[in-house]
């Protein structure tokens, strides 16, 4: 697996992290090292069968009744907001 600058840049984009040139270089090197180590997984042969999935076994997810519980007081909701206007969160203009 080739870890290169383009890949690391794309991953940082997806993760919404603004990285400096120096940081990109640093992470590129670290990821190459770590993923080099992880490469050993590709050699692992298992007997699970090609249809095996990790997410379908076990009992059904618990369900709760459709009963309204009190919501959080809106003052408490907005108290933590870094930027707000009345009872809405404020962000820079979304360009669509």
């Amino acid at each position, binding site marked *: 697996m080739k870890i290169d600058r383009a890949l690391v840049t794309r*991953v940082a984009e997806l993760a*919404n992290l*603004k*990285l400096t040139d120096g940081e990109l270089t640093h992470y590129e090197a670290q990821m190459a090292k770590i993923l080099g180590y*992880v490469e050993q997984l590709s050699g*692992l042969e*298992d007997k699970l069968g090609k249809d095996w999935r990790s997410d379908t076994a076990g009992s059904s*997810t618990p369900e709760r009744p459709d009963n309204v519980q009190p919501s959080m007081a809106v003052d408490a909701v907005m108290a*933590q907001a870094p930027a707000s206007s009345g009872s809405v969160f404020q*962000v820079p203009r979304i360009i669509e």
Partner: protein
Amino acid sequence: MSSETSLTPWSPTAAGIAHDVRAGNIAITDVAEHYIKRTETLHKGLNTHLQFDGNDVRRQAKAQQARLKSESATMPLAGVPIVVKDNICVSGVRTTCASKILENYTATYDATVINRLRAAGAVFFGKANCDEFAMGSSNENSAYGPVKNPWDLARVPGGSSGGSAAAVAADLAPVALGSDTGGSIRQPAAFCGIVGLKTTYGRVSRYGLVAFGSSLDQIGPMTRTVEDSALVFDVLAGFDPHDSTSLANGAAESSKLIAKMQSGKPDLKGMRVGIAKEFFEEGLDASTAKVVEAAIDEIKKLGASIKTVSLPHIKYSVATYYILATAEASANLARFDGIRYGYRAKDKSLSLKDLYRTTRAEGFGREVKQRIMLGTFALSSGYYDAYYAKANRARAMIAEDYRKAFSEVDLLVSPTAPTSAFKIGEKSNDPLAMYLSDICTIPVNLAGIPAISIPCGFDGAGLPVGLQLMAPLMGEEKLLTGAYAYEHATQWHRQRHPKIG
């Protein structure tokens, strides 16, 4: 602290405190004062705490004292001081996860474990320092400075629950809550010479634990003694309707078993103990190995039969873990964007996109960003099958290895960590080396089984060594009774570092 006699007349264990409080021998408020004084004296030097408010503690102590008259029977932890790792939500208290991105975040609800402990009579003694978002094995990844190991202030306490471990080791409280995703309770417990329990996945509610690796995380007690561990475990364990991954039949009554054992001389007769040879291969420090071997001899002396087993896929554990845990974490940390709470980049001229990117770049530390990148990569289009899907298959193989082993033995033992506590700064520039130090603990989380680390001696440098016991799913009772027998015979928990106290 040289011996228990320098403490007040009662025993510095949770069991002892609860007993004395309920018997009326001492008031909760007096217990609180003692530990407030001790904490205020020592916590800054060790950097164990991110939040501590003596007045809040007093308020809680008063409230618990008031309940005692009528509710004593339902308060098995009456008056017990508990430090809470700062990735667990306590309503109205700043909860930072040792990160800048939550530097000003006040939790708006109580974690389920907090509700349970409070109902049981506990008094919360502030929030413990840890690795940022529980990502680390040394507590050097905290945005608020590293924690110092009470046994050697130049060394790490382990991580990620380093603050919790150090607090208990320094007797700032008899109990601390930690969280364990790949060893974050057990390894610091080993480095600090205390007891750390990671329960069966789903046995303790995760509601209110800031998620790192959702399918791996468990909250657990860090204590002086095995009995205390059992006591707290019983309060924490059980189904929580707020946590869809919590087990329906998870409730526990392990402390009753321990109590039974206290009347006689506990042993391990009839217990089949397995040693997985893979844990004793490369990377294990010679001095640590010696201590662990002696511990295994002791286990033999107590009547257990020892058998060598093999866990052939264990070698894939670290690689598997660092794909799965980081993948889940990358999604879990996406909510930290400075919009609804937490840190937001100051520049008001930023576009929305840049606001996201700058807030997260400035708010997250280096290791956290590293893992977010890894996890994002592992899930991204074109790589999912080779990494995330593949790691899940490896995980299933590892879990199967344990199942097979437990068909032959009741418990497995290993060192908790391949070395004792390393020096602050020693490994922090080599993430891979740091990751590899979790090699004994990680497979346990992958398999979802319970495990405990108990002190088993000191290495050549005089540093604590931890012994890890592992049990099959829902095998905590076996774990705790086995650990108790060993503890009773060896009394390592009575050791304290002479300089602290």
